[in-house]
């Protein structure tokens, strides 16, 4: 029998109030398991048992004040007993074996999140420590690229431990939380352990313990240990570790691929935000890494301010925008175009579209005009590979469109839009927009755009200067349609005009080229007949 005492609760704290017991008599506990919650002056403290065993007696009731060092639980020491008397364990394995079994833990891993997605950022836990969860119940929300994915637990159990905290970037297959096993999950190892205990007396104790403890592995250390083939001096390896840079994935600029100090320093940026300290399993974001200053905001009026964590989609947007603005020298060209014909055409197909179960907006038509124009100006459907000093021209046309959602900006993508009809694109836009608002987009549906359209005009504003969706090199802005009086053939006439902007990467696209681009684009918008000529 072991007495579990109330341990030190903090400097100067001599007693605490028992909030609740987390175990009951008969429960089996393992070393370090929380048995009670104690409230002190300021904080509620979880009290762990230092040894494993079976709870015999709880000596206090919730609400009672307990002095530090008082005995709070009487424990029949299971583990210690099995270890010191291995031979007896072998002969009558039933009690201790069964006892250890019920505390078997199950690791819940981050499942595959989508093709090519290797990691995601923890937005929040949807369960709490101590919660009982059912199989398939959502336990966490993970944000990948731009979508938030709900992660279910494959098995039922009681949530024991979270391995990550909000904002951590987690690699697929990392253990994200542990559950203390339910009866069903424990059943299998029990049979296994019984066999062992009977067969080998000397290994009985460690085998029993294995069922209840999660061995920490190299996988829990971040950055991962440098492979022996990595060419870097010990000092460089240490620098990489301290900066949270995974040296294994770092291309070395030195002779024979040697990773230099400079390589590590320049790789630091993107990952530094998530890897301070001895994080367990947090990994660097997959996006390009840059080192931005991180100035603090010192509150002068904190009482009237609210601080929330910059996480999730907002953080991703912040990173992307900062990077794009820093990398790309932007310029924006603005003009208006007569869309009288376009409006007429769109009105004329309204009924047709409704019969086909959709609604035609201007966006799919603009998309078609854009594709026709970038086929003439391939530098608008390109990327710059800065690492290799190359321009990448894309022979496929994936058009992203900026969608405003309650969580912030996302950019769903119409893949191979050049091969789809306006009707098909319309349906796809409606579907993607709705799911974007609901936060149900799959990561793949927000990847791979080659150029983006922002349709802020549907909200308001004459013109804007949008930010290019890096690694793209251009973004088309479309704005409100307005009636405008003009003098046409000496007569005052009412036409409809629409404002457009083309924002381009000046490294690749010169001002005159952008002007010609807009001119060609306007020709198609102004006279949709021209656009039809080019349709395949």
């Amino acid at each position, binding site marked *: 029998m072991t007495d579990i005492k109330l341990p030190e609760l903090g400097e100067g704290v001599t007693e605490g109030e028992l909030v609740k017991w987390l175990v009951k008599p008969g429960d089996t506990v393992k*070393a370090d398991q929380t048995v009670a919650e104690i409230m002190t002056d300021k904080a509620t403290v979880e009290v762990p048992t230092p040894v494993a065993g079976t709870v015999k007696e709880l000596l206090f009731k919730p609400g009672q004040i307990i002095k530090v060092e008082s005995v709070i639980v009487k424990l029949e020491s299971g583990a210690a007993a099995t270890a*010191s008397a291995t031979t007896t364990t072998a002969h009558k394995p039933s009690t201790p074996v069964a006892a250890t079994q019920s505390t078997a833990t199950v690791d819940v891993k981050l499942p595959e999140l989508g093709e090519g997605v290797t990691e995601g950022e923890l937005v929040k836990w949807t369960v709490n420590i101590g919660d009982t969860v059912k199989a398939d119940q959502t336990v966490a929300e993970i944000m990948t690229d731009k979508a938030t994915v709900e992660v279910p637990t494959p098995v039922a159990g009681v949530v024991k431990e979270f391995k990550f905290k909000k904002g951590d970037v987690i690699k697929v297959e990392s253990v994200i939380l542990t559950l203390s096993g339910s009866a069903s999950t424990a059943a299998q190892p029990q049979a296994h352990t019984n066999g062992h205990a009977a067969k080998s007396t000397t290994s009985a104790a460690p085998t029993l313990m294995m069922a209840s403890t999660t061995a920490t592995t190299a996988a829990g250390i971040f950055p991962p240990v440098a492979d022996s083939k990595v*060419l870097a001096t010990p000092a460089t390896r240490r620098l990489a*570790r301290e900066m949270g840079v995974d040296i294994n994935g770092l291309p070395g600029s030195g002779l024979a691929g040697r990773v230099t100090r400079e390589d590590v320093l320049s790789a630091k940026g993107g990952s530094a935000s998530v890897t301070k300290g001895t994080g367990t399993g947090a990994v660097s974001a997959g996006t390009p890494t840059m080192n931005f200053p991180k100035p603090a905001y010192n509150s002068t009026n904190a009482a009237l301010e609210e601080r929330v964590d910059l996480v999730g989609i907002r953080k991703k947007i912040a990173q992307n925008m900062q990077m794009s603005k820093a990398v790309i020298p932007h310029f924006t060209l603005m003009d208006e175009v007569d869309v009288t014909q376009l409006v007429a055409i769109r009105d004329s197909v309204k009924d047709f579209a409704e019969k086909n179960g959709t609604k035609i907006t201007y966006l799919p038509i603009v998309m078609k005009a854009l594709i026709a124009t970038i086929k003439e100006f391939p530098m608008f459907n390109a990327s710059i590979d800065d690492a290799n000093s190359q321009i990448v021209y894309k022979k496929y046309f994936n058009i992203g469109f900026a969608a405003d959602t309650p969580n912030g900006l996302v950019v769903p993508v119409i893949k191979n839009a050049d091969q789809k009809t306006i009707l098909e694109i319309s349906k796809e836009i409606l579907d993607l927009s709705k799911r974007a608002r609901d936060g149900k987009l799959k990561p793949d549906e927000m990847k791979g755009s080659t150029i983006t359209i922002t349709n802020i005009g549907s909200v308001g504003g004459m013109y804007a200067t949008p930010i290019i969706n890096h690694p793209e090199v251009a973004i088309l802005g479309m704005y409100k349609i307005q009636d405008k009086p003009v003098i046409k053939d000496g007569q005052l006439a009412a036409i409809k005009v629409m404002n457009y902007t083309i924002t381009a990467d000046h490294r690749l696209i010169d001002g005159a080229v952008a002007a010609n681009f807009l001119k060609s684009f306007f020709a198609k918008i102004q006279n949709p007949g021209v656009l039809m000529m080019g349709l395949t």
Partner: protein
Amino acid sequence: MQNFDIVVIGSGPGGYVAAIRSAQLGFKTAIIEKEALGGVCLNVGCIPSKAMITATHLLHKAQHDFKTMGLNIKGGIDVDMKTLVSWKQSVCDKMSGGVNQLLKGNSVTVIKGTADFKTTQELTVKSSTGTDTVKAKYFIIATGSRPIEIPGFAFDEKDICSSTGALAFDTIPKRVVTIGGGYIGLEISSYLRKLGTEVTVVEANTSLLSGVVDPECAQVVARKAEKAGIQFKFGAKAKGQKKTKDGYEVTVEINGKDEVIKTDKILVTVGRRPNGDQANIKGVGIQTDDRGFIKVDAQRRTNISHIFAIGDICGQPMLAHKASHEGVMVAEIISGINRVYDAKTVPAVVFTDPEIASAGMTEAECKAKGYNDLMISKFPFAANGRAVSMSETDGFVKMIADKKTHILLGVHIVGPEASNLISEAALAIEMGARLEDVALTIHPHPTLGETMMEAAEATLGHAIHIIQKPLGGAHKTATVTK
């Protein structure tokens, strides 16, 4: 009841180093030792054996080289074993005392006694003065290893000895049978032979130090040991021993046949086993593997997150310098610094005659790692001026490099001061040096160190002091694919 931030169990080269660094980092630190400070290394291992080897090496030089050099000793050399052993002990005491001072100077509390985990938060420490409880936020287990005992050869440390007993012999035994031709057995056998003992080494493998060092290096040592008069029984299994009137009879089985060897003392050096079965390590749930090593991750953390294990207890290689490296690392990890064990090589040294030292991989290990195109060459000590002038010309420096990049993968030295030469190789390997880096570094003349530079040159195909093929156009630096 005493309370600390960090408690280190065991004061060997892992433990005391961990304790000092912990204290340097500002932790309230204690170290628990049941025997002498400094552990096996300082008291019954590395240091005393080196003292004995140094003394007997001088004796051997005096007996064999002095005459050639014109130094005649009249009447021979009288070995006073009692003085030798007490000098050896004074070396140990000096080192152990030094550790004590360092611990005191860093305000580490030294607790004498035997520690057992009571819970994962506290230890009971039994000593001659009673039993105390010691609590800590973190524990570092550095309880090391002990010699393996084999059936039928229970240690009495007088006649049937582990290294501990053999190092304490205060008379020169006439005959010794050494069971196990590993490095510990060979080091002790070699110096006993120099003192005049008839030594028979019984080894289960077919060669010495097999699987431990480069086979060519082992050959040089085997040849010299045989020449010195050490008897070797390879492929031999020690079956048992019997006490007789004038000593012991050891029965060994060779090729299915039993053979009896008469001896006065039996030295059993078949390896060391981790002390994972002590200190109630398993009792509180710390996981060990089936050989008794505590399971740890690359930060040397056990399955219980506030308990670490370093040195012999946490895995191979069981070498003091690996333990020290881990000791520093773990203290820093506890202080919140992100560290991990990522050393490319743990150099190993064997104080045989001549010494063997290695860093990096052997040829077989390189192949296993996927390096198929290797450059391998040797440079003999016989071609080195300093070695010749020391009259120590046995051995060579062997280098192994990747042919594609010329990056140094392994260095294996057998020869004089190999133990002192290997550090350069370890540095080169950790730095990812190429053969050219070593070859183009000016090495001072006349030193044994020149052999490193020459071996690098030899591996590139053009050492100066041995005859190699004409260079042709190959003198240009090989282009290395980036």
